[in-house]
């Protein structure tokens, strides 16, 4: 296997993935903040650990008593009592460990649970702009895999570190009490250890960040290709995709794992080297001291025996430190996601939008996406009185979709304001706005669950009758009842077993059930066959009645029936008026009309 240099795509190595700011203390502090609510459980665990340790330390002592006072003193009664006490201690120890492990498991899992809950809630607030930058795979990596790296650490390591530190302090005190000079010789290793740790930390953090980023890449490739499996197979791309995966993405991951292993493999033995150095030095200098009779042989013997115990917790700590680095790399990314600013957020004094009539006004609205300064909309002035239907017309990419996205407040305008009933949308809560709006998107998206669940998504407390009525109104009832379990038929991920037309009908029923004051239809009527479309047109006519609606459509009938037609070109409104007015004008609408919106 030849080592080749793989350059992952920019998003894998981007600064935000491998940022250099060493955030250790901050990351650790903030993560500890998540465990803080469980501090009493942690303390209890620590006490239980102590108790378990005592009950095991007591063992050798009991053996000694049994031998000295029981066996040697030929006193079977003492022997029996000691054995009983020992048994009691063992049972207690069992209980202590059982209790502690359960508590810590609960704490650790709660920590993970809380973290994911917070992350998910945050994801629900992030604007759509975030989702156009972050692929599904990357979001999954952070919420699932990166959080997983923290799990083991919290459950097993936190207490173990505390235990090691206690042990270390105890041994250091014992060593100092025994002989200060020899202790100092041993402690010379401490600054060396610190130095090694420092050198290691920078490298390890970098290496483990790369591992996390590589997993993110693997996840993205998997998510995208499994989602697009139908296209993959249609174009017989399996072999090529496979070699892309195994030669690049997966291999890059392997390389990062191995280089992280190299870093760890270089660091872990440091303790053993220092331990050997210290032992050799103590024996040598200590031996000389014994010769010079400045210490007794007994002290040196005891000291040599202690050195080993001194390095045991250090060895354990350095191993934990390695896991910690890996966990921190994950923790960093988790916090990074949690810190992603919410672009569209409710103002602090945001009001609940009262039940609206449905007047919609765009006032001098200009807009560009945050990552691209090219204006998408410029100086949009538009008024739609309550109950009117506005048809948006223009070429692909003219800005129609963006315009309705501003109305739904998926984005905020860069300049100007969007007003509903004279209220600036930025002054109200997003929920109260969207609860009064219905949106039918270009690609009807259905969730895992039953057909009924999917329709109910429009109004969660709707009764079965209401669900059915909505389905009937859009002409979906017939095909739904033909499905295996009717309304309870499962819809698989993305609704693949339903045709596009059927999915669209369900998404209509969903919008209808929501009974919105303002309705947005985004090119949604275009892929249904004529008969179904007829039914829908009729349903929509009743639906549109009394609602303000913005329709992006190519259908002439929809356009001509609209109260107002707005022609958008290059991000600007070039014409608006009724069908007849615009025809008379012989402007852009006339041209569009001539080339034909229609069949």
């Amino acid at each position, binding site marked *: 296997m030849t080592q080749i240099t793989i350059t992952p795509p920019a998003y894998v190595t981007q600064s935000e993935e491998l940022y250099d700011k060493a955030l250790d203390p901050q990351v650790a502090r903030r993560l500890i903040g998540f465990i803080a609510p469980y501090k009493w459980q942690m303390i209890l665990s620590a006490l239980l650990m102590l108790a378990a340790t005592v009950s095991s330390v007591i063992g050798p002592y009991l053996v000694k008593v049994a*031998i000295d006072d029981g066996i040697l003193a030929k006193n079977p009664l003492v022997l029996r009592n000691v054995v009983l006490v020992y048994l009691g201690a063992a049972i207690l120890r069992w209980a202590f460990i059982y209790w502690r492990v359960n508590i810590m498991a609960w704490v650790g899992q709660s920590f993970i649970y809380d973290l994911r*809950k917070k992350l998910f809630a945050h994801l629900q607030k992030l604007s759509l702009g975030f989702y156009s930058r972050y692929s599904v795979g990357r979001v999954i990596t952070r919420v699932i895999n990166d959080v997983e790296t923290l799990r083991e650490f919290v459950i097993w390591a936190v207490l173990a570190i505390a235990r090691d530190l206690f042990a270390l302090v105890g041994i250091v005190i014992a060593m100092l009490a025994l002989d200060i000079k020899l202790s100092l010789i041993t402690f010379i290793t401490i600054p060396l250890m610190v130095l090694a740790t420092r050198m290691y930390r920078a490298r390890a953090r970098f290496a483990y960040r790369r591992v996390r980023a590589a997993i993110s890449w693997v996840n*993205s490739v998997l998510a995208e290709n499994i*989602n697009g499996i139908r296209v993959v*197979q249609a174009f017989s791309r399996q072999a090529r995709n496979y070699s892309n995966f195994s030669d690049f993405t997966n291999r890059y991951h392997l390389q990062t794992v191995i280089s992280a292993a190299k870093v760890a493999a270089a660091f872990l033995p440091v303790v053993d080297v220092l331990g050997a150095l210290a032992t050799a030095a103590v024996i040598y200098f200590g031996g000389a001291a014994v010769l010079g009779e400045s210490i007794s042989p007994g002290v040196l013997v005891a000291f040599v025996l202690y050195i080993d115990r001194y390095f045991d917790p250090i060895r354990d700590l350095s191993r934990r430190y390695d896991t910690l680095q890996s966990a921190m790399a994950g923790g960093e990314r988790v916090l990074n996601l949690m810190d992603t600013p919410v672009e569209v957020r409710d103002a602090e004094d945001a009001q609940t939008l009262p039940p609206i009539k449905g007047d919609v006004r765009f006032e001098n609205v200009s807009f560009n996406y945050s990552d691209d300064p090219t204006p998408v909309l410029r100086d949009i002035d538009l008024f739609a009185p309550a109950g009117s239907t506005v048809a948006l017309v223009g070429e*692909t990419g003219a800005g129609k*979709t963006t315009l309705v996205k501003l109305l739904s407040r998926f984005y905020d305008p860069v300049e100007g304001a969007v007003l509903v009933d004279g209220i600036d949308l930025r002054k109200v809560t997003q929920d109260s706005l*969207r609860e009064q709006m219905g949106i039918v998107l270009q690609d009807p998206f259905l969730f895992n669950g039953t057909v009924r669940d999917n329709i109910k998504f429009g109004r969660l407390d709707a009764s079965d009758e209401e669900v059915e009525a909505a389905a009937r109104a859009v002409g979906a009832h017939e095909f739904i009842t033909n499905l295996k379990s009717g309304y309870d038929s499962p819809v698989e*991920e993305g609704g693949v077993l339903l045709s596009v037309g059927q999915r669209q009908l369900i998404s209509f029923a969903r919008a209808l059930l929501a009974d919105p004051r303002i309705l947005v239809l985004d090119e949604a009527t275009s892929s249904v066959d004529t008969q*179904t479309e007829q039914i829908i047109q009729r349903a929509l006519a009743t639906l549109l009645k009394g609602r303000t609606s913005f329709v992006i459509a190519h259908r002439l009938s929809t356009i001509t029936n609209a109260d107002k037609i707005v022609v958008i070109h290059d991000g600007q409104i070039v014409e608006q008026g009724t069908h007849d007015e615009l025809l008379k004008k012989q402007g852009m609408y006339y041209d569009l009309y001539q080339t034909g919106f229609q069949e």
Partner: protein
Amino acid sequence: MSLFRLKFILKPYLPHLALSMLNLLGLTALSLYVPRVIRQVIDDGIIPVNIDVIIRSALILLGLGLLTAALVGAQRFISEWIGGHIGYDIRNKLYDHIQHLSFSYHDHTKTGQLISRCIEDTRAVQNFIGGSVVEIIQLVFLLIGALAIMFSANWQLTLIAILPIIPMIFMTFDFGKRITALFFHVDHMLGELSARLQENVSGVQVVRAFARENHEIERFDETNRGYFQARIKVIGTWAKVMPTTDFLVTMCTILILWFGGNMVLTGELSVGELVAFNAYVLMLATPAQQLTWLVNAAGEASAGAKRVLEVLDTQPEIESPPGAVNPSTLRGEVEFRDVVLKYLDEKKDSLTNINLRVKPNQLIALIGTTGSGKSSLVNLIPRFYDVSEGAVLVDGVDVREYDLVGLRSQIGLVLQTSLLFSDSIRENIAYGRPDASEEEIIAAARAAQADEFIRSLPEGYDTVVGERGVTLSGGQRQRVAIARALLMDPRILVLDDSLSSVDTQTEQLIQQALDKLMEGRTTFVIAHRLSTVRRADLIVVMDRGRIVQTGTHEGLLAEGGLYKEIHDLQLIENKFAEDEEIVEKEKLEVRRTKDFG
């Protein structure tokens, strides 16, 4: 145990595992030897004060320490190396296999679950094989060794002392079995969590549009809590077994103390023998505790292996048959013979009694209500699904006899929703033919009316699109998808409602380009617009999975029936007479058809 079935993955790494084993043995030997050296220093160097011995021993200890350090580093590296490679191999195998699984499998499988198997489950297996397998082997040796020493020291006492070991063995085996099942559930829940998240991210617009964030948070919470509970159950089980093992080892000491003590009292045993024997028993303690750890790790890995194997064991339903025919250039004759199609979970047939013969280079329009089976019908030609009864023949040969790649590479497909990949537009167009030249790619884009807008993008053909790139509109995506299909220069072209989301101007441009391209290919078009349907050589009208009418536009109009109904409906819709005139004028230019406005 599923883990054993993954042993084929281990094969290439047996030498490495052996090396790892040797390394570990070396480490163990060192850890046993170093205390002896220290004891020697104490006995021969310090107590009698012999500086030569002291210096020599100090040097020996230094040397041994350095050796230990080297082995510790090597052990870490070898285990990560083996684990890393095994993970790499498993992920490759999984990915390769997933890619070949048929549509019907993917229809019922959540992406999040599949990803979870490739990442988390694979990780469990690789960690175990890389790190723990050799440890388990070593542990078993240590246990056997300790027992052997005990037996040779005093077999009667040993028989008493190992009494608690017997339930321990049973418990450990039982624990291994139970923990595997529990871990399997944990993995499943993690997969569900991942699937839930995946779905939520994909459907984010809908969630926002209906202000259903809290509803989604609740749903996520349910799964999150399920995962929490599954994990707690695992640790709860472990929390019982781990201290019990500890307790049973302590019981050994207690038994020795009691029976051994009484033996000393009756003079059958000396105190020294009793103390020494107890020291041997303590040798059991550490490995016994580690054993539960390792069995736990084995359970986790075994559950992961089971989930990995679940995927690998699924046979792709649709594969090239042995001795497959690799078609040379197809003529493009397609025949459906008594075709019935029933999807796995449907109660009714999706296609019934389909008989249709299409001559090379014909243009076929499929028309019918939504869910009438049009897409199902065309999906049979590239063998995305296999018929339940009857046969689909291309150039007179059953499609099930062709080499899959050979067949599919001659079929160009434009699906209803055009999915592009996160890559440059160039790569996306060249998706089916990565070796295509720049000129060919541009020509295909031109033909699909995409060249112009692509050039207006910031980086032209190098602009990255898809999940992470520039967001194209539905119409733009559609045109790139058409270019992608055209570049294949297919003999059979399937356009599944592919013009639905482009605006009318663009549609006309594409239509004109397609008209040229359809020449000399068999083309199936699923369309709702009569303008497209009219020019077909053969119109197939479908209803509820059956072909109800076939014929030309004029013929079908004269015949009456469903086609006329649909046609009249559209006429009513285009209620303005002038529209019809415009349409008709245009029609006359394209193809001289009868005016019936």
